[in-house]
């Protein structure tokens, strides 16, 4: 983890309200592991003080990038920033995905919306290619489909309105695939909490391991404030653990869903 002021190389619209932000960060870029995040202080934001956490999307040379959606005043201001402007970044943060080794389980990735961004490095680093299931509300919510395909992964798209791929939820083609044969598979997921919960349940039903990248409201991002906690099993019960430090990626069997809100 390093704290640095970094320069924006590019900040371009992807589709609809999604943007791709490329940052020059020569010291941070080589440290990044799949599933980790960057905690970004959007310096022009004056009365909104806290940093915003973003999954790290791609790493290229001395840069890393973030794929984000404008969802509030922080990301609105960020989307208007231009190449050459600076951001303060603490990164890489968090405990990411376990990269599958050659000969191990076949990875099945499940992504909802911009959850896709958090899984690109995993797909890229994995010697074992698998299937990525990606879901969104509409066609514009399906991101970086071609980039995953270019890595040699099979991409199965679902949209809730049927405007692209199969109509329905991302879990439908996943279940269909597992019914055809679940042995030797492992699930990895990033997306909205209801989707993660559903993937956790599917993993349990098919008796498969699953790693879930949990999305919790975050404050310091570095483990001190105890904002982003989720209930995690312990020997004799559960305790709150930090999504920013013990997570964001957790083994689905460790999460105590009954105790989540």
């Amino acid at each position, binding site marked *: 983890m390093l704290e640095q002021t970094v320069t924006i190389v590019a900040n371009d619209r992807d589709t609809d309200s999604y943007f791709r932000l490329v940052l020059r960060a020569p010291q941070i870029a080589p440290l990044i592991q799949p599933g980790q995040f960057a905690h970004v202080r959007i310096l022009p934001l004056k009365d909104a003080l*806290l940093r915003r956490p973003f999954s790290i999307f791609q790493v290229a040379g001395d840069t890393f990038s973030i794929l984000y959606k404008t969802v509030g005043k922080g990301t609105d201001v960020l989307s208007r920033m231009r190449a050459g402007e600076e951001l303060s970044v603490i990164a890489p943060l968090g405990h990411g995905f376990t990269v599958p080794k050659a000969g191990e389980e076949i990875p099945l990735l499940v992504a909802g919306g911009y959850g896709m961004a958090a899984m690109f490095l995993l797909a890229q680093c994995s010697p074992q290619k698998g299937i990525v299931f990606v879901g969104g509300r509409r066609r514009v919510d399906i991101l970086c489909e071609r980039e995953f395909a270019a890595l040699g992964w099979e991409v199965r798209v679902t949209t809730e309105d049927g405007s692209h791929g199969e109509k329905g939820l991302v879990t439908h083609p996943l279940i269909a695939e597992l019914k055809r044969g679940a042995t030797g598979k492992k699930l990895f997921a990033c997306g909205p909490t209801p989707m993660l919960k559903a993937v956790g349940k599917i993993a349990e039903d098919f008796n498969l391991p699953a790693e879930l990248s949990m999305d919790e409201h975050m404050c310091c991002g570095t483990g001190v*404030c105890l904002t*982003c906690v989720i209930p995690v099993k312990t020997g004799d019960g559960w305790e709150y653990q930090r999504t920013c430090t013990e997570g964001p990626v957790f083994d689905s069997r460790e999460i105590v869903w009954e105790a989540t809100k």
Partner: protein
Amino acid sequence: MNLSVKIGKLTMQNPVTVASGTFGYGAEYARLVDLNLLGAVTVKGIRLNPVPGNPTPRTAETTSGMLNAIGLQGPGVVGFIKKYWPFLKSLKVPTIINIWGTTVEEYAEVARRFDALGGVGALELNVSCPNIKEGGAQFGTDVKLLAQVVAACRKVTTLPLITKMSPNVPSIVPFAKAAEDAGSDALAVTNSFPAMAIDIHTRKPKLANITGGLTGPAIKPIAVKLVWEAAKAVKIPIIGMGGIQNADDAIEFLMAGATAVAVGTANFYEPQTPLQVIAGIRDFMEKKKIADVKEITGSMVIPKTEGRC
């Protein structure tokens, strides 16, 4: 140039520490901040037994500040000593341990345990957390209970006692005096302000706890006034805190009467803030030709004006 200050018998190499709950147990920020440059490390509140903390959401950003209702999640005395104390003990700077309980006896028991531990810099009595049902602010908003807590801890330890005052009282003066009279070596002024926020789209409170404590730059002017009022009322030193983001903010607290300051919420978005504050105080002293930081304490000048209303 002398930046060192004394809080009771505790010597700090400079007047800057961190506010309890904003710096974990020190180790978390060790990779980003050279902790040995601080005046002291103040850790998150600890009671006798482990505390699970409140449900989420636990914090919410507000204009120039934030709300929190963490609920003092923590490992308890034994867990803290096992997991965090070896690292803190290895630092060159003192550790201030923030303690709390749900009864006067528990405060005293926690104080006794840390006294027995050896090597602790000071104890900060948290009698002002607004986010727990029992303990915390219940003691800080009742003069008699406050005096009992301080006296009970005083009886069991010779460690410097810093009483962390609640802002949620009609006047801080009787509370400050009560803490001093009961044997407190210093005051920490102030804790977060009870507050809340509502998401107008979902109509839900932004915190699971409904209410929380407001901190950050939004509260600074109120905190400065509380320090000024408390400083006039007592002889013991005050650690001023509330929304400090830079050296100018810190110097304001010193001028209002604080001997030292603590950086709180700013750590969450800029962990370098305490070090920037120390450097900025040094700069200010150089420029203003101030030899000892203690000269700044209480140095506010009130202009003598005729017919002031």
